[in-house]
């Protein structure tokens, strides 16, 4: 069972005592206020961690690209240049703000804010562990697909409001690319909804297991193809190379953020790096077993029964293991995304559209039909269970 952070804390006595104390202190029922405080604190922590992930993402991007191209990469600020992202942040805050004279000022300001809001709103759904999820919405993946398209609006607005030809071209390309690739990603998500019988990320993860053969990627041949459809669609949705046409630096200068300087540009970059993390997390939750730890270590029952640890300690060790499992898989996928960026050349606009509409969309529809028929034919068993039954009945 997957809980939101508030429901998880509610299990413990100390939390109940804190609510009772606050109720006495204020003279009214304080459970609502307590919920707000817990969510506020958790949101603040997650935003800070994610800002760190975004910052370290830029560092990792440069270090890995340097590795691939036999260069040094950043190595001056801090040990191995790891503080480079802080130096970049300080530089961006100190930079002069330049407003193009012809720009549409309100929209020019609004675009980075929309990108940031769209990405931050999706953070609420990232399932770090069965207890540490901000909220396990029952319409999870549907909400995520809807809210993350705010980024597409931001890309287009940024291009339009700058009133520069490079920006305009980048913005139009970005808008058409982001909405096009939403179709295969939505249909692939639909496939996982069929398998898991629910739209929430809790349902996605809880119907999988800790070991690779229990993950949805290896559930049947169609989901295996579906993972790659999702991965390519994800690269295009986040404007990562080889789909970085909206900001193609060799043809459009810098695309939709050509006219952006200083912190507005910084917020665009931050939103992009966090979005990659969030979508990697979605991929992990949908296909790679999410926060599940092998041999059911995540529930902590083993620590409580065998080692005789107190219930709170056992449960929390399980939670830490789950967070570790989720974050490890997500960062591995993040590495893959960066690796792809520095390996493949950028593709042309017409190729982007061809890949989306003529390859990925029919493939996603084929997978959807395949999974639906597979579930009907084999009672929703995975290919390993089907093979196991076939071999055991043959003897």
């Amino acid at each position, binding site marked *: *069972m997957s809980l*939101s952070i508030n429901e998880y804390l509610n299990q413990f006595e100390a939390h109940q005592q804190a609510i009772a104390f606050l109720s006495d202190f204020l003279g009214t029922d304080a459970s609502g206020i307590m*919920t*707000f405080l817990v*969510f506020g604190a958790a*949101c603040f922590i997650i935003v800070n961690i994610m800002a760190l992930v975004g910052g370290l993402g830029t560092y990792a991007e440069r270090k890995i690209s340097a590795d691939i191209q036999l260069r040094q990469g950043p190595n001056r600020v801090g040990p191995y240049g790891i503080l480079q992202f802080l130096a970049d942040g300080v530089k961006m*805050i*100190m*930079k*002069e*703000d*330049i407003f*193009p*004279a*012809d720009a549409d000022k309100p929209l020019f*300001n609004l675009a*980075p*804010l929309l990108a*940031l*809001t769209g990405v931050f*709103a999706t*953070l*609420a759904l990232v399932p770090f562990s069965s207890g540490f999820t*901000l*909220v*396990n*919405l*029952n319409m999870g993946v*549907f909400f995520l697909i809807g809210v993350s398209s705010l980024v597409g609006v931001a890309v287009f607005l940024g291009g339009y409001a*700058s*009133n*520069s*030809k*490079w920006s*305009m071209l980048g913005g*139009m390309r970005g*808008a*058409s690319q982001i*909405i*096009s690739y939403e179709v295969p990603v*939505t249909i692939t998500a*639909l496939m996982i*909804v069929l398998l898991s*019988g629910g739209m929430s990320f809790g349902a996605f993860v809880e119907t999988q297991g800790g070991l690779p053969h229990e993950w949805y990627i290896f559930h049947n041949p169609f989901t295996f193809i579906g993972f790659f459809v999702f991965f390519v669609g994800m690269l295009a949705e986040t404007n990562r190379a080889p789909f970085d046409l909206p900001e193609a630096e060799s043809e459009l*200068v810098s695309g939709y953020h*050509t*006219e952006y300087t200083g*912190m*507005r540009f910084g917020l665009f970059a931050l939103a992009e790096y966090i979005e990659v993390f969030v979508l990697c997390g979605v991929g992990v939750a949908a296909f790679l077993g999410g926060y599940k730890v092998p041999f059911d270590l995540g529930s902590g029952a083993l620590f409580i029964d065998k080692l005789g640890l107190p219930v709170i300690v056992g449960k929390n060790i399980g939670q830490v293991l789950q967070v570790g499992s989720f974050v490890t898989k997500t960062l591995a996928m993040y590495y893959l995304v960066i690796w792809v960026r520095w390996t493949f050349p950028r593709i042309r606009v*017409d190729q982007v*559209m*061809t890949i989306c*509409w*003529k390859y990925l969309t*029919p493939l996603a*529809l084929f997978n959807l*039909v395949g999974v*639906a028929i597979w*579930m009907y034919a084999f009672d*929703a068993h995975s290919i390993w269970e089907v093979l196991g039954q076939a071999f055991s009945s043959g003897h």
Partner: protein
Amino acid sequence: MASYTLDVYMPVLILMGLSVGLFLVSVFAAKIIRPSKPSALKEQAYECGEDPVGTAWSNFNVRFYVVSLIFIVFDVEGALMFPVASIYRKFVEVGEGGVILGSLLVFISVLVVGIVYCWSKGDLDWVRSFQLSEDQVKQLQGAEKRS
């Protein structure tokens, strides 16, 4: 755990509020510490050193409209399939999956017909050829001879 009340959206709203706060602080409040020396040259749109000619707000290529129209059709149909998809597993578990499978297949076949139609009309090609086919050329030549 499934949630049926609206207060589960509280963290979403808090996160949106935090993003607005981050934006206001880093873009507006930090104006105190950054220099501001605007000049007419600095505020020009960037066109690789040339003086910008005209405005960038011009007509779109009509391809973008076609792509967004196809997208809307597919996205709405995808959205309509979500509720059906989320109950499919329960129906399969009690052995009644055939009903849902049938309706899903009918719905998906409509989508497939849609994509085949768009494909055959050439709406999925980004670069569309406007050259006349040989039959059309013959027709036109025939019309010219008659006249």
